[in-house]
Structures are given as C-alpha cells and as structure tokens.
C-alpha cells in the first residue's frame, strides 16, 4: 500500500513477520474444518477448544491507538440478517450452515465467465493477512485481522470487457438454511455493488478467514467482501456470484431504505445518517467514543477515486 507507513502502529501491536500461510496448507485446513462443519462438529466448537487466537497480518491504515478487536467480539457481534436481525443471532443460527461444496459464478461483461469451485477460485492467488479498520453504519467499529485475496486478482482473471463499469455481488439464496431469507426484512438475495475502479482498488479484499482461521459462518463464510473505507454492510457475505455490469447494480439496503443507505456508502463523518450522527463511533470494547475518520482512515489511499464528487449527494 502506498501510504500505510504514515500510520504504523507501535511494533508491539504488529506480528513481527508477515506470515503468509502456504496456500495448500490453508486449503487443507479449510477443507478439514469445512468437513467438520458438515459433520455437525462445527467451527465454533473447534474454536472453543483452542486458545484466544493471535491477530496476524500486516496493518493497513491503522491509527496509533488501534488494537485488534478481540476474537470473541468479532465472532459474536454480527450483522448478518440472513441469520437473524439481532447481533447475537448469527453465531447460533449459522452454526450448521453448509459452506462446502461452494460454487462462485463469475459472469456478465467479462471475457472469461466461469463457475468455480471455491478451492479453484482461490488457488491462483496468494492468501494475505491484513488488519483493517471496520466501521458499521450503525456507529460502532472494530479492528479486524482478515485473511483473503485481493479482489483485483479475481477481476484481472475474469478479464472484464470495455463495457464493464460496475461489479455486482450476490449472497447465497437458500431460505432453508438461512432463516432470515424467509422474512421480508430485506430484498433477498442480498446484493451489493462497487464501481469497477473501487473493486480494483488494492484495499478491496475477498476474505476467507479472520484471525488466521477459516472464516466462521457468522462472519460470512466461506467468502465475503471487505471494503474497509465503506460502511460494513457493503462488505457482502457468503458470496456466490460476481457479475460485471454496465449499469449501477441495485443493492439490498438501498432498495430497503434509499434515503438512509446510498450506493457509495463511504464512511464519512460529515454526512449524517438521517437518524443518527456519523461524526463519532464506539469502538467495540471501548467506552469513550472516537472521532470517525473520512473514508474510515483510508482517505490517502481511496480519496482520489471520489475527487469532484458531491459526497453529500452520493452518500
């Protein structure tokens, strides 16, 4: 990253060496734990037997006082409406969610459309551990050590045509497994979208893990987006389709309440949500509020993509 050096956290907070897990070993572990989930053993059960995991990865855009949010908070305080609207619902309701086998469709305005098995989809890329800031539109935030592959890699392989201007993401539609999809709380399946240049930005990550472990179901297993400069709901979970389009995709929250959730949804302390201020945030685990940073602290890296745009209108 170009500018993260400016906000390097104290060395005590950083894992000394960047540990890129061997891809094959990672896939083997993913497979083993995935199989565990299928047999009903479940990832949380395995996690419970282990120690509190250490945050691994290279910090991106962290402020000097940013510390990784504890594993327990990251994996129990979740907005994942497919598994219930309460923050504590997904950890229980997603326990038996089946993430293997998993197919990802890449299609639309690309030269190489394909249906991939998740393993094949991930194989060509090196898995990276990256610590990002995370800001929910509701006014709380975390610091999360993700594991994933750059979205830009996937886009390059798909080889979008000249007409492609946007990328649309879709969550699995399976009301049998996802009880939330049996309710009318959001238009299902959940969809999200990015402008092509946003999607190609080196910070945009497709995550398959957190805290060096396979992504727990409640965090959007087996494949989720992470766009750290946007509000959390843009980072769509349990992705089954990545489609390239020439027009701005419809997004779930925007369809549900257009005046509250725009297409861009960049973190912006100067543009309030109609019902609450976005100027401050509560970091999970902290009592005193923090000031929310423009683009969630990634302004140096992403600001130029929005030069000249009225961010009050394009909220």
């Amino acid at each position, binding site marked *: 990253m170009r500018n993260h050096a400016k906000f390097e956290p104290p060395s005590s907070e950083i894992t000394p060496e960047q540990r890129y897990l061997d891809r094959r070993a990672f896939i083997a572990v993913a497979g083993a734990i995935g199989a565990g989930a299928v047999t009903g053993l479940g990832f949380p059960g395995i996690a419970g037997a282990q120690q509190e995991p250490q945050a691994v990865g290279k910090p991106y855009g962290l402020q000097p006082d940013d510390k990784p949010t504890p594993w327990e908070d990251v994996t*129990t*305080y979740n907005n994942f409406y497919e598994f219930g609207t309460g923050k504590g619902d997904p950890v229980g309701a997603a326990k038996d969610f089946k993430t293997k086998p998993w197919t990802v469709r890449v299609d639309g305005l690309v030269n190489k459309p394909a249906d991939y098995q998740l393993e094949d989809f991930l194989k060509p890329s090196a898995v990276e551990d990256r610590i990002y800031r995370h800001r929910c539109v*509701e006014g709380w935030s975390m610091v999360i050590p993700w594991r994933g592959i750059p979205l830009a890699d996937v886009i390059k392989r798909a080889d979008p045509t000249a007409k492609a201007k946007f990328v649309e993401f879709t969550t699995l539609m399976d009301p049998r497994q996802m009880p939330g999809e049996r309710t009318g709380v959001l238009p299902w399946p959940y969809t999200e979208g990015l402008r092509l240049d946003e999607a190609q930005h080196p910070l945009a990550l497709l995550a398959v893990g957190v805290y060096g472990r396979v992504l727990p179901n409640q965090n959007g297993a087996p494949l989720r987006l992470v766009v750290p400069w946007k509000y959390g709901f843009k980072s769509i979970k349990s992705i089954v389709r990545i489609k390239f389009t020439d027009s701005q995709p419809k997004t779930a929250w925007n369809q549900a309440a257009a005046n509250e959730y725009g297409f861009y949804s960049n973190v912006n302390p100067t543009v309030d949500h*109609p*019902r609450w201020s976005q100027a*401050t945030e*509560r970091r999970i*685990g*902290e009592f*005193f509020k923090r000031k929310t940073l423009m683009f969630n602290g990634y302004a140096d890296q992403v600001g130029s993509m929005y030069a000249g745009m009225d961010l009050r209108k394009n909220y």
Partner: protein
Amino acid sequence: MASDIITHTRFFGSNPVKEGEHYLGQWTLRFIIATLSITPLRQLTGWNWLAKHRRTLGLFAFGYLMLHWLTYALLDVQLDWGELVKDLAKRPYIMVGMAALLCMIPLALTSTRNSIRRLGGRRWNRLHTLIYPIAILGVIHYWMAVKKDITDPLIYAIVVATLLGWRVVRWRSRHGTPSTPVSA
C-alpha cells in the same frame, strides 16, 4: 474504572451501552403496559386490590425511562451538548421520545397520595390520562428507532392498541356512540 466495568462485563454483550439503552427502553414500555393493564384486569376479574399497585408500576416506568434517558445522554452521547441539541432538533424519533418523557414528569411528580388529595381525584385522574399519549409516543419512538426489523415494536403496538381499544369500547358501550371518543 467504571468504564471498564461497563465495557468488559459481558452481560450486555459486545456493545453494552447500546444494548443497555435498548434494554432500559423496552422495560419502560413494559411497565407502561403493566400500568395500562390494571384497569382492564380489574374490570375483567373484579380484583380491585390491583388498583393500589398502579402508581407503583407507573413509577417503575418513570424510573426505567430516566435510566434509559441517562444512558443515552451520559453513556451514549456522553454529554456532547451539541450532539444532544442536534438530535433533538433534527431527529423525529428523539423528539417523539422526549415528548413522552416530558409528559411523564408531571405524572411522576403527582404520584404521591398527597398530590391526589390536593388535586382532587377527578382532576388527578384527568391529568393522568396523559399515560395514553405517552404509551402511543413510546411505541412510535421505538418503531422509528429500529433499523429495519419492526417485529418487536409491532408487538408493543398491538398490545398498547388493545389496551387503549378496550377503553374506547367500554366508553362507547356506556355512553352510546360519542362523536369525540374520550377515554376515561
């Protein structure tokens, strides 16, 4: 440190201020509903001894409302006065909630036996019909505050509507069909 206790006990989970705020708001509504249930229950069962507990329940509602507001002002907004004023001026659900809170204050202040004597039963009763708009405002406040899933506010709305509807029906059956229904 107090803030450590608030953030690190896991009783209210990962975001204890928000959870606590919601918890206290819900208990406010539950005590308002309990207060409103006394009259229908008496009428249905003839248990007139319930009447003497009504003011206690009302005071519990007021107590929870105060804790709800203090959690919001002290722990959530953390006495950022600019933010408090902006909330009140710009956010309809805050206005609705504050209106309910203001209506509740005279009821709490006149909850003593002395006040009933001073005001006279008739005037006291009339003043305390404020609990009806308070209940309605409380449900509206909750409804407007939730992000998307209105299941819980809907349940409260149905309960409050039933309790108030009961009174309208009783009033009508005793007074014929009034042109302007006044609850008693």
